[in-house]
């Protein structure tokens, strides 16, 4: 087993020391830093310059309440009364003196109406704010005309009380569900990225060793099976290093932040969910990684050029993409029938069973069965992978099809 550690160590150190690893890690860390400081960054860029809106008020009474309301809801918008003609006002907008022009008037029923002029009408948030506020004014005028007193109006506008309580005591509460959704989402994304990035890394690594023909020396000194698993675990540790680095940095930055940011992350369920969900997350993540990594190593051993590595792991990439899509759609309907069925298909289990575990209250035997199936598949794949690997690494050719799988198996077969 000594050789296993040598190969593992070699895989790990060469990867961690490589330029690409250092660069991607740094870039991601910068990204994480930016994400946790998103509020500060937005504040820096929106430097307090307000959107100036020119208003021509034909009614002489709408401007004041509208300006007050708008400026209350969004302090980045400022309304000014324009005292000149409509034509001049439009020109001022064209010259970008004002962000927009709004023409206030009343219709035949004495209710407010407006026309909005701007150089482009694609900036919808400004429009929406103005429209909403005017709508409120209109409601006020209309109710006043109908003789409704303000107290009644306030009562009408008050939101309805709508509590949700699950009768099954072990079912998740609404709050728990939201948190679970956050964790499931993060885990889905993490697994998806990990499989794509590190699966690719394994396949390329194997293909590189084959294409540089160093493979024959390697497998003459250590068995291909040892080699394959040392590589898989080595790359896993590289990935783990990266993930721990990211999570650690993220956690440190968040805890150092103000309450508002903390709350934002609490909504994703970080820091407040039960321990079991984290344990499930780790179990499904590791099993999922092992499954796909073994598949990637097997596929990588079939090609003889680095360029072909991308192509041959396509089917694997499709599998994980499909799993991801099913899981995302399952976030809103975790108890749908097809979610239940797909959660037992080993290639989908890590994502979809975890989704169900997180979102629903599932009998233990279902979880155990899915993990059992998953582990079984990993073992079968590992045995098959080791065989293919043994033959595959000696197989050189131009083609990169799955037909090579048969050839590789034939090469490693013992005809006795």
């Amino acid at each position, binding site marked *: 087993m000594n*050789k296993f550690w*040598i*190969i593992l160590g070699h895989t790990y150190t060469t990867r961690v020391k490589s330029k690409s690893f250092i660069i991607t890690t740094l870039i991601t860390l910068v990204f994480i830093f930016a994400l946790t400081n998103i509020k500060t960054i937005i504040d820096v860029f929106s430097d307090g310059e307000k959107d100036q809106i020119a208003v021509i008020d034909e009614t002489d009474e709408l401007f004041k309440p509208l300006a007050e309301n708008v400026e209350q809801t969004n302090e980045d918008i400022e309304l000014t009364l324009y005292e000149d003609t409509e034509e001049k006002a439009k020109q001022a907008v064209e010259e970008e003196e004002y962000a927009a022009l709004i023409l206030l008037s009343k219709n035949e029923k004495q209710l407010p109406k407006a026309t909005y002029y701007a150089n482009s009408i694609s900036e919808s948030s400004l429009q929406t704010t103005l429209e909403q506020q005017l709508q409120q004014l209109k409601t006020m005028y209309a109710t006043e005309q109908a003789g409704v007193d303000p107290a009644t109006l306030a009562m009408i506008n008050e939101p309805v009380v709508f509590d949700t309580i699950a009768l099954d005591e072990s079912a998740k509460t609404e709050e728990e569900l939201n948190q679970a959704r956050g964790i499931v989402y993060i885990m889905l994304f993490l697994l998806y990225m990990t499989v794509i990035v590190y699966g690719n890394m394994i396949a390329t690594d194997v293909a590189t060793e084959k294409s540089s023909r160093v493979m024959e020396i390697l497998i003459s000194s*250590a068995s291909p099976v040892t080699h394959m698993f040392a590589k898989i675990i080595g790359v896993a540790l590289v990935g783990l290093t990266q993930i721990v680095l990211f999570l650690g940095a993220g956690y440190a930055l968040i805890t150092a932040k103000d309450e508002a940011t903390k709350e934002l992350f609490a909504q994703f369920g970080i820091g407040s969910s039960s321990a079991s969900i984290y344990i499930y997350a780790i179990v499904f993540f590791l099993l999922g990684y092992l499954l796909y990594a073994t598949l990637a190593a097997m596929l990588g051993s079939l090609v003889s050029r680095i360029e072909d590595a991308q192509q041959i792991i396509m089917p694997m990439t499709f599998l994980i993409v499909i799993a991801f899509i099913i899981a995302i759609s399952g976030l809103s309907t975790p108890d749908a029938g097809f979610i239940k069925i797909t959660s037992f298909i080993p290639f989908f289990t890590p994502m979809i069973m975890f989704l169900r575990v997180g979102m629903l209250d599932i009998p233990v035997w279902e979880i155990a069965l899915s993990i059992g199936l998953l582990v079984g598949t990993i073992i079968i794949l590992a045995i098959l992978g080791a065989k293919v690997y043994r033959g595959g690494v*000696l197989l050189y050719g131009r083609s990169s099809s799955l037909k090579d799988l048969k050839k590789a198996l*034939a090469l490693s077969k013992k*005809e006795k």
Partner: protein
Amino acid sequence: MLQLKEVTKKFGTHTAVDQLSLEIPEREMYGFLGGNGAGKTTTFRMILGLLDKTSGDISWEGKAVNYEKSHLIGYLPEERGLYPKLTVKDQLTYLARLRGMGKTEAIKELKSWLDRFQVPEYLNKKVEELSKGNQQKIQFISAVIHKPKLLILDEPFSGLDPVNVEMLKEAVVDLKEQGTSIVFSSHRMEHVEELCEHLCILHKGKQVVQGSLREIKRSFGKKNLSVYADFSVDFLSNFPGVTKYKSVMEGCELQIENEAVSQGIFTAIQGKGFVRKFELEEPSLNDIFIAKVGASYE
């Protein structure tokens, strides 16, 4: 002693190695000769356990070769390859550690080998920066750095310039003298002729000739005869016992059935004029190879 008994390897319907039986003595250099596709590389891979034999038996010192013995075995594959992005030092310490060496020991050995090959400055260079020939030296070091007891070299001298070929040959001879058993393949007859005591010639997976160099030559029987004379020697082409006739500037070079034929020729040319050269030679391995392998083409 490395022993192969009726070893056969089939890839589907194609037989790559057919009923090969050999004995490779300890502390000797053993040559594998054969054209392309003769089954040399397949045989080596079977010896190393990289490929499973279809039938037959391979044993080294009475046991099958497996990964537990890998620290005693050195291998230079025919297809050369190292990690292009790694430095010579990182690369070879990794490969040496896989062969059971310690790190410091490996670096020490590596330095002395680089000195021997007069390239000590390569220690911290990336392999991709080196020329093909120098990469080959590095790869040779990777095969011998752990002082193997059994060394398998697949076409060790191909692609090297004459100076480097000499350097590598010397290294191989030294290793043999230090007690390493060496098996190597080549299609260059002169290398085998120069280095090996025993050899075999493979053709299409079958063993055509096998044994010690001297015996092979003796049992071949045929000899080479050069006759350079001032008169025309054309008539010798039809002389009984002459199997090959090649006319050269000053006379002719013949291949004859046996020594006795040369006696006849000697008598035949007497009195015809001045004879500059009359020389009887042992056949070269090249002649034997062509005769044996060429014959089986027919």
